[in-house]
């Protein structure tokens, strides 16, 4: 099965890095889609079928957490796994991602291996219910 993946980041170089890393990881990617912020992402999601969303947190206009909130309030979009890529390492922020419904998060700077392992687990564990969260236990609440 080939997955359609939406990369959301206001930085074009970072979108390129994420695409390169996912491609190199051996994922069967059907097609990559791009968006520069959450608002653009929602437009793409409302017109294209997507299997996975990988989004930055800190973006202008609509950040990753706000995008997540919009998706989780939509009957169709809420089933799509969302991975948040972030520079932020505070436990409070990471908890916000997971409680907001993120399937997982990836901290920047990241290695290709970290991205590969996370996405493999998420796509392997997706059961169609949208309940793909796997990082809660790693947080020190």
């Amino acid at each position, binding site marked *: 099965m080939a997955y359609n993946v939406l990369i959301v980041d206001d930085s074009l*170089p*970072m979108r390129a890095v994420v695409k*390169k890393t996912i491609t190199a990881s051996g994922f069967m990617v059907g097609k990559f889609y791009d968006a520069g912020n959450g608002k653009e992402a929602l437009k793409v999601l409302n017109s294209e079928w997507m299997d996975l969303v990988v989004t930055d947190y800190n973006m202008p206009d609509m950040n990753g957490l706000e995008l997540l909130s919009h998706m989780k309030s939509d009957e169709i979009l809420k089933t799509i796994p969302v991975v948040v890529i972030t520079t*932020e*390492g505070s436990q409070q922020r990471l908890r916000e991602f997971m409680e907001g419904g993120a399937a997982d998060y990836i901290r920047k*700077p990241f290695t290709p291996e970290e991205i590969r392992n996370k996405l493999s687990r998420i796509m392997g564990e997706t059961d169609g219910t949208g309940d793909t969260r796997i990082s809660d236990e790693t947080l*020190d609440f």
Partner: protein
Amino acid sequence: MEPEILESAMKRSISEVLEKMFFVPVDFPNTSEQHWADLCRPRKFMIAKLAFKGPFAGHFLFFLPEEMTSSLAAGFLGQDEQHVTMEHRADTVKEIVNMIAGNMFSILDNHALFNLEIPVMVEGSDTEAAFSGLNEGIFVPVQTVDSSLGLRLVVH
């Protein structure tokens, strides 16, 4: 917070980001800010600014030589340097300071919540002003194999 603790976290974060994401080994020369500035002034720099708020507030200024931004952006994009635009370079510089800042705060205290603003490029007359404020805050000069760069942290 003690300046020594902040400086140590800055260095560790710079190392982790540049070595992990860009495969650029770094060293931290024991040089004065003025000496660093004298060495760097003839070169053209791109400077990104990132403001933050949290348990304390302030901003970072990240100084990167133009020629280095080209190779770093090319590596990020997976393209030849000749295809790299100024916008790509600026995006790369902004992304680096964003990663360094977020990573540094995580190193300092991963229970503290800092809000990072969107990074911006320092341009025009503000560039010279950024250099002229070299004695402000904490400055970390960074040496790579063939470049000198720097990171300033100003706590308001």
